C-alpha cells in the first residue's frame, strides 16, 4: 500500500519536473528564434560578415565623395567658376558619405525588416 503511494508521489514529482523542464526549453527556443535586435548585418560575429559590412561602409563613403568631386569638377568646367564648386561639392559629397554610413548604421538591411515595408 505505502509502496504504491510512494510510486504515485514519485510519478507526480517526475511529471512536475518534466513540465518545468519543457517550459524552460520552450522559453529558450523562443529566445533563440526571436530576431536579433539590430538586424543580421551587425550581429553576425564571424569575420566574413564583419568584413562585408566594413567593405560596404567604406565603398558607400568613398563613392559619395568621388561623386561629389566629379560633379563639382564638371560644373566648374561648364560654368567657369574654377575651384569654387569643386570645394562646395566636395563638402556635400563628404556629407553624403557620412549620411550613407549613418543610414547603414541605423537601419541595417538584413532580411528581417518586414515591419518597415508596410508604408
Amino acid at each position: 500500500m505505502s509502496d504504491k503511494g510512494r510510486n504515485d508521489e514519485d510519478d507526480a514529482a517526475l511529471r512536475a519536473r518534466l513540465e518545468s523542464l519543457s517550459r524552460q526549453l520552450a522559453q529558450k527556443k523562443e529566445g533563440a528564434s526571436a530576431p536579433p535586435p539590430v538586424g543580421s548585418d551587425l550581429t553576425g560575429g564571424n569575420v566574413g560578415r564583419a568584413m562585408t559590412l566594413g567593405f560596404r561602409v567604406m565603398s558607400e563613403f568613398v563613392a559619395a565623395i568621388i561623386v561629389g568631386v566629379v560633379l563639382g569638377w564638371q560644373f566648374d568646367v561648364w560654368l567657369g567658376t574654377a575651384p569654387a564648386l569643386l570645394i562646395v561639392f566636395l563638402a556635400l559629397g563628404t556629407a553624403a558619405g557620412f549620411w550613407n554610413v549613418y543610414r547603414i548604421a541605423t537601419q541595417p538591411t538584413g532580411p528581417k525588416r518586414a515591419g518597415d515595408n508596410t508604408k
Partner: protein
Amino acid sequence: MAAAQGIDPIHQFEVLPLFGGQMGTATFTNASLFMVIVVAAISFLMIVGTSGRALVPGRLQAAAEMAYEFVASTVRGTAGESGMRFFPFVFSLFMFVLFSNLIGLIPYTFTVTSQIIVTFAFAALVIGIVIVYGLYKHGAHFLHLFVPSGVHPVLLPFIVLIEIISFVSRPISLSVRLFANMLAGHITLKVFGGFVAMLLGAGAYSVIAPLPLAATVALTAFELLVAFLQAYVFAILTCVYLNDAIHPGH
C-alpha cells in the same frame, strides 16, 4: 627563374580573343566564354533540377529549391510582397553573380565579376530600373525620395543635394564593391601561391614554404565565403534600391 612567370598576379584578369584575331566590338573572348559557361551552369541547375518535380526532392532539385527559397525570402523580407514582381530580375542577378564568383574560384578559370565593366553594367541596370519604374509608377511623387519631410526650409537645398549625391553614388558603390572584392581576393590568392613557388626555389628558405601554402588553403575557404556573401549583398542591396522605387515615400 621558372617561378617568375607564375607570379604575375594581374595576368589572370586579361581579356583575350579566344579564337585568335584582333579585339573588335563583338569578339568572342575568354570572358564571353565564361559568361556562357555561367549561364549554362545556372540553366542546368534550374531546368534539370526542377524537371523531376519529385515530391521528395533529390540533391539537384533540393539545390534549385533552396536557391529559389533563399532569394524569394530575401526579396519578400526587404522589398515586401509587392517586390516579388522583381523576383525574376533579382534571382537572375543573384545566380549570375554567385555562379561567376564560384566558378572563378576554380583554378585556370576566368572570373567574370572581376571586370568592373561587368559589375558596373549590372549596377547601372539596377539603378536604371529603379528610376524608370519609380517614375512610371509614382510619377513626380518618386522625386520625394530626395526630399525628406520635416526639414527646415533653409537646410532643404543642401539636404536635397546630399540626397542626390547619395543616390548617384549607389551604382558606383554597388559595382566597385563586388569588383574590388573579387579582384583583391584573386590577387591575394595568386600572390600567396607565388610565395610558395618562390620559397621552394630559394634553397634553405624552402623549409618555410608550407606557411604560405597553409595561408592559401585558408584564403581559398575565405574566398568561397566572400563569393557567396558578395552575391548576397549585391542581391539584397538591389532589393533595397527597388524598395525605394516601390515605396518612395519616406
